[in-house]
């Protein structure tokens, strides 16, 4: 498998959505190609980040934190 071919199936591979034969080929390529290995590690981290639960910050809390910041800046005891 070439790097270009690996990149085409990379995401499906990381999602566990390729057949066994393809998975083996990709794994073999990743073992010997630092560039593709790096790309795959970035995509793994992207997936992990997206898998984290998200909070929608309460506007009141953000407003309070903005005030806190302004007061702190105005306090001048740096």
């Amino acid at each position, binding site marked *: 498998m070439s790097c270009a071919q690996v990149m085409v199936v990379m*995401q499906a591979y990381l*999602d566990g959505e390729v057949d066994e034969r393809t998975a083996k080929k990709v794994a073999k390529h990743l073992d010997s190609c630092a560039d593709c290995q790096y790309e795959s590690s970035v995509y793994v*981290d992207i997936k992990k980040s997206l*898998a984290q*639960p*998200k909070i929608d910050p309460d506007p009141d*809390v953000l407003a309070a934190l903005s005030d806190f910041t302004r007061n*702190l800046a105005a306090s001048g005891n740096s």
Partner: protein
Amino acid sequence: MVLLMDQQTDTETKFEKLVLPELEIMYRTAWLYTRSKSEAEDLVQETLLKAYKALDRFDGRYPRAWLLTIMRNTNINRARKKKPDLLDDPEKTFERSQEFSDTQTPETIVVDPLFSAEVTEAYETLPENFRNVIDLVDLNSFSYKETAAKLGVPVGTVMSRLHRARKQIREVLKEKQVEDTISQGGDHID
């Protein structure tokens, strides 16, 4: 005296300019650390206090990385303070210090918070039909087939939306050179 006042105002403006655009990201990250709204607010405030004290040592580049590094250290200290009983037992103290020698809090944080913050921000800019696919596959661990059924679109559409969405996020990270910043580390701030 006038000069002093001007300097004061400069510092004031500089701090606000640096911090205000990052507050939302800071709060989101603090929530990932603490999983509690009130503790997250506390953690952000404590981080801001430390950042303000360290302001004159900050070179002004990439405030987000600077602030999130301070937050990470602040959180480690908070977690330590929460377990004072362990300090009595040298063996347990050692275990603790091993545990916290890791740069991230176990369990709640799985990726570098800065990286994760940039991913979240890029995700927010994606069109809704891209975000829906990401939510199902990455957040809820749906298969492509299940996602397709749920959204009533062909599997091919799921794949193309999902892959394009993540690729777009990847491009944003590349543009911002997030990985470079992370690998260079910003760990020397207390």
